[in-house]
């Protein structure tokens, strides 16, 4: 998704782009996500700023892309089971509001006006109208298609990048694949969870780690959940860096029928083995929120690997260690949501345009204390 967005915005800036992927379109984490476009789960700071910009861009894109991408400005509903967690939500909501996030407190007895099937014993919650959802694989495929229709984007699928070409002064000159060398003055690393490996090919370190998540998918249903509904615990889990299994149910309907239930987080490398315990917790939490789901059947589950950087911020921008190399990866669980803003930033950097926001917090070399460096426009 991030790569598709980079290509789309770069092409719109007049650049010619080749997108290389070792797999098919949306073959990595994009195809394993829920398509969250969230502002509600983010603390004020650079990521929230990026998310707010993306929210605007997604709305624009929804006019460009066909309805099939299932963009829904459905809004989020964050609920608290008790007074204590409601207080935490209240504090977060107030701080988010100062940063430009719209939200509104909903009393416990008002929750079921928004979500009729919610459990009656919740203390209250917050409604976030800016939260939205998209079908990420379709969005990526259609964004790439729009880029190709512009005549400036070439798509090369099923090709593994085996090396990064460099000039005598160490600057990037392109990439090597099994079918030959591709020359380009700039290379954008949008390899997601595998971004660390591509960085390594270019001779730099970027500590992207996989953080596994399971999603449970139900049988097809009519609309039973209107918003993206999750509990206050989710915010804490997202911000945590723990390797242990964490689960906090995020429940949402889809236009296609099934209800999706995320989100678990654990750091176990690239292990796809089913975790019954993760599914048990997701199911228990989801049915506690929506008792109506207890008799509904899960018909599928899948695992994905979020690209995780130690400080939970993505790496966006030029790498001062290798001129010509840019990174656009490490968005953890928010890559779909943050993709358009990331793509726009990359495109502006490449075309020498004005940056839409301060990108210093996303400096790719920030994890190397020895060589702090400052980003420079190539």
């Amino acid at each position: 998704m991030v790569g598709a967005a980079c290509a789309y915005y770069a092409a719109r800036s007049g650049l010619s782009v080749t997108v290389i992927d070792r797999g098919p379109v949306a073959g990595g984490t994009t195809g394993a996500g829920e398509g969250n476009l969230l502002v509600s789960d983010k603390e004020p700071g650079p990521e929230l700023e990026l998310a707010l910009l993306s929210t605007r861009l997604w709305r624009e894109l929804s006019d460009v892309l066909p309805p099939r991408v299932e963009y829904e400005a459905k809004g989020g509903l964050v609920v608290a089971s008790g007074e204590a967690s409601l207080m935490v939500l209240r504090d977060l909501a107030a701080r988010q509001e100062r940063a430009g996030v719209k939200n509104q407190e909903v009393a416990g007895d008002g929750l079921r006006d928004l979500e009729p099937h919610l459990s009656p014993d919740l203390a209250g919650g917050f409604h976030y109208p800016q939260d939205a959802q998209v079908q990420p694989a379709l969005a990526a495929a259609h964004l790439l298609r729009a880029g190709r229709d512009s005549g400036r984007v070439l798509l090369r699928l099923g090709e593994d990048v085996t090396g990064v070409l460099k000039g005598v002064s160490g600057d990037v000159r392109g990439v090597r694949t099994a079918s030959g060398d591709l020359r380009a003055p700039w290379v954008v690393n949008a390899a997601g969870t595998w971004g660390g490996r591509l960085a390594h090919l270019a001779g730099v370190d970027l500590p992207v780690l996989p953080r596994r998540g399971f999603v449970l998918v139900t049988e097809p249903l009519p609309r039973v959940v209107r918003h993206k509904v999750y509990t206050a615990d989710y915010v804490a889990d997202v911000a945590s860096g723990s390797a242990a299994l964490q689960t906090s149910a995020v429940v949402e309907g889809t236009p296609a029928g099934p209800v999706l239930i995320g989100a678990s987080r654990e750091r176990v490398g690239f292990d796809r083995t089913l975790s019954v315990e993760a599914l048990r917790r997701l199911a228990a939490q989801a049915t506690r929120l929506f008792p109506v789901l207890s008799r509904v059947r899960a018909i599928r589950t899948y695992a994905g690997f979020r690209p995780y950087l130690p400080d939970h911020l993505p790496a966006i921008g030029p790498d001062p260690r290798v001129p010509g190399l840019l990174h656009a990866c490490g968005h953890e669980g928010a890559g779909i949501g943050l993709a358009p803003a990331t793509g726009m930033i990359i495109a502006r950097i490449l075309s020498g345009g004005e940056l839409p926001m301060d990108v210093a917090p996303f400096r790719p070399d920030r994890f190397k204390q020895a060589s702090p460096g400052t980003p420079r426009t190539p």
Partner: protein
Amino acid sequence: MPKSPSDRAAGDPYGRVYDLAVIGAGCAGLAGAVTASERGLSVALLDTAGRIGGQFYRHPDPAFGAVRPEALHHDWSAFAGLRRRLEAGDVAHLAGHHVWTVERQDGADTPWTVHAITGADGDGEHPVRVQARTVLLATGAYERQLPFPGWTLPGVVGAAGAQAMLKAGLVLPGRRVVVAGSGPLLLAVAASLATAGARVPAVVEAAGYLGYARRPAVLAADPQKLAEAVVHGAALLGHGVRLRTRSAVTQVHGTDRVEAVTVSRVDRDWRPVRGTGRRIACDALAVGHGLVPQIELATSLGCATRRTKDGTHALALDAFQRTSVPGLWAAGETGGIGGAQLARVEGEIAGIAVAAQVRDGAAPARDGRVRELRRRRERMRAFAGAMAAVHAPGKGWAEWLDDATEVCRCEEVTVGAVREAVDAYGARDARTVKLLTRAGMGWCQGRTCGAAVACLAAGEGPLFLPPSPERRPLAGPVPLGVLGSLDPSEPSAAPAAPAGPAEQPDTDRPDGNSGPRD
């Protein structure tokens, strides 16, 4: 480890640890279970059905009081023998158990937990789990389907499905049933239907039976298979059934149910030959294009697979029926389609091998019985390989489709939508087609359309990805309330990945191994 007295103490079938859990009570599973049990192992035998026998020996409920159940079966005495041994032993037969996942814990004394849900269609309210030291997968196969215009009309049924409904329910889908597709099963189905009173105006086979003539050595090596074919062939002749080879049903006619089919000639690659269509009146069509090993429990555990000669994926097994995952054996169709007799042989090898492993911690390398069984297995596997090659779907089958034909029956995804995903949106494999069109995302999770979608997605050249075995981490539907009420357990504590890309266990490939989002 031999069984301890405490294992046998409890009467609760879920409260003990078995030496072996066998999943599937068909030929392979039955043979494996009784063999291991007779060699002293405690064995649990889980199966979705209420009665043993699997698909091949599916038979009427005792309530029918059938005095000649063998009338619809080949080699009934072999099954009767296995049933006697099961009844005489102390295998815990757990009927109506739908296994949805198998968990393995590295290094534990009881490494295996088999999770199941009970009930006739797995609609039970309570989850159960069976713990075991070893597992034998004998989950059989399901039928491969290739779509054609009109195949979703009521009255079009799977050939194996028609056979199953007849064997267990003593019913027919119609009075005049065309049997079509490819594979030796078609002859057996046609013979059963005709014997049970249906008129079978034609058996329509896309392959040419001449293919067998090119492999005389393998054929001669397996006289029993030949005998079986002769029996079916004779039965068909007796009923005036006409076998049309190199032909396919290319259109089904009718508004709310089948009224007729068009049968066309096909060339060597199964490409329909224009102008050869002939209409045959019928009120049902039984169709199937061979069988597909059912291996999702194993692929979810990371078992190695192999491509078979007809393009399916089967488990890669060693001489003692071991999968690539320690403690997990497999037998029968899961290792490649080969029929009931081969399944019995492989089940017995597995039973002996598991018993040797549990008792002695070693493979039964010098067991004379195993050597004999392995000889028979090799002969039958060679025959099965020849059969798979003869009936492998030809490249041209997709030419009998039109864009409006539904490929995915669950999600009603058309051929046109699949082709668009490939041609316009960069899909190069079944998984991406699924992500972009929902083909394979419905109730059956691609069991019915998977083969067809993989064919339609598979183009030529390096841009296209080789098909990968399908993975279904949930092997069946589970109510969320049931899933949520499982006993909590500690997640297997794997260490966090070390920092730094060079040391990352980067073995993952975006190769269709994960199921996609909705």
